[in-house]
């Protein structure tokens, strides 16, 4: 008898998840705009923002600089 499949047998690792750290710290990459962003985004609760509302690093640089 053939194996009966459960969800995990059919699931895949998303391409983006293979390099999740790079995505997390590259907010203007394509990844930060993509349709699955909500799956991978973990906001920094210690972040701050500039006058346009963009995240600013601790050294005062915009995080996309």
């Amino acid at each position, binding site marked *: 008898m*053939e*194996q*009966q*499949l*459960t*969800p*995990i047998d*059919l*699931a*895949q*690792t*998303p*391409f*983006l*998840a293979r*390099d*999740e750290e790079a*995505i997390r710290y590259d*907010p*203007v*990459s*394509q*990844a*930060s*705009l*993509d*349709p*699955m*962003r*909500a*799956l991978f*985004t*973990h*906001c*920094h*609760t*210690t*972040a*701050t*923002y500039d*006058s*346009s*509302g*963009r*995240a*600013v690093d601790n050294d005062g640089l915009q*995080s*996309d600089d």
Partner: protein
Amino acid sequence: MHLVITSAEDATAHLIFDRVGSEALRLNWECWDQYSLTIASDDFKLADKFGRVVTNETLGNVLWRKPVAVVPKEEGERYFAFHEFKAAIEAVLARVRRESPQKLLVDPQRLSSVDRFYQLSVARAYLPTPEWVLTNYPSKHEWGTRPWVVKSVSSRPIPQAESSHVVLFTTAVDPYRLSDGWPWFIQELIDAPYDLTVVYVDGASFGFLLDRRCFDDLDWRTQIGTEIADHGWVHVELPPELTAAFDLIMRDLDLRFGRIDLLARDAQCQEVVFLEVNANGQWAWLDLDGRYGVVDAVVRFLTG
């Protein structure tokens, strides 16, 4: 003053704020402790650290973006405080919903009532839709000989112990091989060479095609982060009868904004099959430099 609820790292919000300037206040969830918030019986006041202020009297429209801050429980008191703040903002939105629902351009509460099954039942009055069923006893169904796929209803990833999560993308399957006891969303496999996604902004439809022959999987989202998925979408002029169908579907769903996913059997989009509406779907990657007018349309939607 309009209000955009998002994250400080939301690049889509960057594009919007490049255009709206000081007409809107950007509330970044993860920076919650850098805003001034007061709610009293008859009013609320939210201010950012640069002097933008929104009150019950001055509030224009509200756009709720998808990014949500995740505050670890290990932060203890700050975890608690974040959720107090978030609940207070949600109470503000609840008041807007009661008093001026038209101001909530994308209402998270509304989205949950426009589920995929309802979308398909509405859309089939105007466009072809695939056959589908959700069942946790696939062995009890007669599947015939047509091809099928499984999809996720919730789009939640499956947690993994040692690696990151995995995702149930749209996957071809023989339903007779599916185990009973699991809820399976099973849909007719549509053989079509193109993915069509349409950004619908308050009556305007912006179509983009992706040639599915450029990758092996049925679900283009497996390719996100690759050249083809990120840059392979091509703007397409939509037939008037198709945009008219979108108007009717979105009217019936009571949605003014969404990204509509379809399959197209031809590059002119004369023959399409409706799949779903992502009622707060991402869209900016389709028009990063604004040449097709999507960002401007969203800005008009926000500020109109």
